[in-house]
């Protein structure tokens, strides 16, 4: 994975830059010693590292504006960072860039239960948004698995999803407004406590723009009343095809579960060895969760179980208690850890049409043999968002490259069957060079044209999302 070479002219500006940053930020908010900038050398895509020239930790929208204005004046690239949990390298710096971290901005600014929103600073973590409203039985719906650590700023940048988005949607469907600072320091307010945009839906394009259009400092988020309860059912099948058909039949029957999770045999085995959740030894396993009052849950589960029975499950386990629910979820929630126990792994994130599930799983199995690398599949089946986990040995020369090539082939397969490269993790640097497999040059050009409007000099997170060759002329201009 290439990154642009650092620009010596920018590196030479470091002393002057630090001096100017210290005029607008307290000393402890400007990190510039080499021993300290190392803490910002990577995000959760740890295979790629590079310490930035400096990192700043502003505490207010005004400070963010001051920092961006200075960097804009001096032509210094800025890489925004939430909590640094990106799996796609979204917050990976270059040596000539400044990391702008929003971690110190984590206040709740307003909670409004009558109008069902909360306004927070963007450094607040996803789970603590729910934490701020749960005493009144409300919650913030998008729930990426990193929710304990990840920041709302990063959720907005990547348009994060989670296990429950089949029912509640992803970040963009729960984001009502932002305060955002443009690269030149201009502060804009977009949206608010009302629904729908008055003019062009700028909020819609900002969400998911991977920190390339502006730095979001505050967000107005939709909150929802918690359901009265939730319970899963676990079902095992002796083929991926049958499990896929069962998913399709449940959806067609008019039941809208809050989550439909799918695990294949390699993943079930690894999980079982690790967490001992008591999962059946079978080809494919589904966990389907529904919400409501006890009686409503029973009504829905009854229909789901009836559908499952038509597909001759090898196991069917309906939860009747909180304890049984926890046991059903135990394996699924340990899946990534279980795979990590076996070896290093790379987690992919392509989405496919649900109807293509059996075909894609079969092809991944064939490719796994060709590459000689094991792969386990655990994913959100209701919406087709796959998470193949490819196992490799980071200490074995060439294994990472082999794994990346295998991953790229899987993602190309996702695109071929009508899906996409990434469902919820974002492009970052990880999938940047595969964008040409999903988009024609003109499709990429019109996206880059949007960045031209918000950030004409291409200083904000410039080496991400678009293949370097495609963005070269714009970055150099």
């Amino acid at each position, binding site marked *: 994975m290439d990154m642009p070479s650092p620009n010596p002219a920018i590196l030479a500006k470091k002393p002057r830059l630090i001096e100017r940053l210290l005029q607008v930020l307290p000393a402890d908010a400007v990190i510039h010693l080499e021993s300290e900038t190392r803490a910002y050398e990577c995000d959760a895509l740890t295979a790629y590292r590079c310490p930035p020239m400096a990192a700043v930790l502003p505490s207010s929208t005004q400070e963010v504006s001051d920092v961006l204005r200075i960097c804009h004046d001096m032509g210094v690239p800025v890489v925004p960072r939430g909590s640094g949990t990106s799996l796609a390298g979204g917050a990976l710096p270059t040596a000539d860039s400044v990391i702008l971290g929003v971690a110190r901005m984590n206040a709740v600014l307003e909670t409004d239960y009558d109008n069902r929103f909360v306004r927070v600073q963007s450094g607040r973590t996803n789970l603590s948004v729910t934490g701020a409203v749960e005493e009144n039985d409300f919650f913030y719906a998008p729930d990426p698995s990193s929710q304990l650590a990840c920041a709302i700023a990063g959720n907005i940048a990547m348009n994060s999803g989670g296990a429950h988005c089949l029912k509640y949607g992803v970040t963009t469907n729960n984001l009502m407004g932002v305060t955002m600072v443009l690269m030149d320091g201009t502060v804009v307010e977009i949206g608010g406590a009302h*629904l729908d945009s008055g003019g062009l839906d700028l*909020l819609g394009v900002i969400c998911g723009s991977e920190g390339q259009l502006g730095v979001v400092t505050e967000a107005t988020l939709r909150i929802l009343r918690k359901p009265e309860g939730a319970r899963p059912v676990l079902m095992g099948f002796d083929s991926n095809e049958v499990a896929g058909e069962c998913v399709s039949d449940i959806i067609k029957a008019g039941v809208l579960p809050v989550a439909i999770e799918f695990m294949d045999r390699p993943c079930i085995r690894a999980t079982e060895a690790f967490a001992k959740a008591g999962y059946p030894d079978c080809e494919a396993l589904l966990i389907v969760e529904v919400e409501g009052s006890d009686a409503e849950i029973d009504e829905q589960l009854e229909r789901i179980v009836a559908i499952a029975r038509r597909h001759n499950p090898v196991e069917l386990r309906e939860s009747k208690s909180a304890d049984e629910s926890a046991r059903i979820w135990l394996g699924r929630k340990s899946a990534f850890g279980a795979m990590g126990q076996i070896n290093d792994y790379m987690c992919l994130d392509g*989405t496919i*049409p649900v*109807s293509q599930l059996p075909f894609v799983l079969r092809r991944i199995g064939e490719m796994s043999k060709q590459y000689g690398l094991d792969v386990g599949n655990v994913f959100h089946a209701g919406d*087709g968002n796959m998470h193949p986990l490819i196992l490799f040995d980071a200490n074995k020369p060439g294994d990472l490259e082999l794994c990346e090539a295998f991953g790229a082939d899987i993602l190309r397969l996702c695109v071929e069957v009508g899906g996409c490269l990434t*469902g919820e993790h974002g492009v970052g640097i990880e999938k940047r060079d595969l964008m040409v497999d999903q988009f024609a040059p*003109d499709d990429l050009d*019109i996206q880059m044209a949007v960045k031209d*409007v918000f950030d004409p000099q291409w200083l904000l997170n410039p080496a991400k999302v678009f293949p370097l060759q495609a963005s070269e002329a714009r970055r150099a201009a």
Partner: protein
Amino acid sequence: MMIPRTEAELADMVAGATGRLQIIGGGTRSVAQAREAQVLTARGLSGITLYEPGSLTLVAQAGTPVAEIEAALAAEGQRLPFEPMDHRGLLGTSGTPTIGGVVGGNVSGPRRIQVGAARDFLLGVRFVDGTGRILKNGGRVMKNVTGYDLVKLMAGARGRLGVLSEVSFKVLPMPEVAVTLVLPDLDDAGAVQAMARALGSPYEVTGAAHWPGQGAYLRIEGFAGSVAYRAGKLREMLGGEVEDSVERWAAIRDVTPFQQVDGDIWRLSVKPSDAPGLVARAGADGALYDWGGGLVWLRMAPGTDLRARLGAFDGHATLVRAGADTRARLPMEQPEPPALAALSAGIRARFDPRGIFAAETDMSPVVVS
């Protein structure tokens, strides 16, 4: 009128255009002819391209009639969840509403308050930009963060960024049962409070509207047992009577109280609890609240500048129906603050560098090279 029959023909027509183009579907949501513009309709691009009920996905050409899509979905027990309104009654137009028009206007009905707007269900678009390039964004899968989300930008762009040729949607199952809880005798403030309590409950209300003088209405949908349970719980909380009918929701969606009556029609998008105060300040001849108060339809004396009367508020006011002289004087959309207006203008300039796409309400002269 220009009626391309294929996407390629559409691209050629746009590339070869020498004057301004006003983009329409069936023309049912337009109230005016853009100045000096030739009309180009997408209605010749028609037909459902792909429908997979088990994947909750439908793809259609932009000129496909909404009715054709709704019928295909109904045959499989599914629907467009965002309940797009039919503007013909309110605007006094005729013709056939198209799915591209729904997307262009981000047209959503009462269920928007619970499930989201048209833009939230739009998975992908194909369109032709102002230079005649055929472009695509998004796709046909429910979760997709690959590149910028221009899908949202195209929803509600009203033909100013490009001509839609194909759109894909996430659809949802139709409920088994639907009922309405009617709360009579509430004033506007009381109704908005009651709707807030219902929407803040765990009972999943899929419509919350208030028709002053008639009553406040809450819609509950789902499986029979669940609907009975939730309607019962809401009635315990708020009183009222449960009706086994949801017919009145079509009337709320299409704003029938203001059909065939005089006056300018405005649409307010506001923070719900602000709505009663704003309605009082507006001095309207009539009001209809939807989305728990987040959407208010107002009938105003002809020529009233509602925005001047309301002053600053969280939200925006759209002029939906008015005489030509009023439309010449008042912009349809709420003017944006300068920094946002500059971003919007910049985006339009990139998508349509020749400035040929004329929104019906654009009053400024455009330059076509």
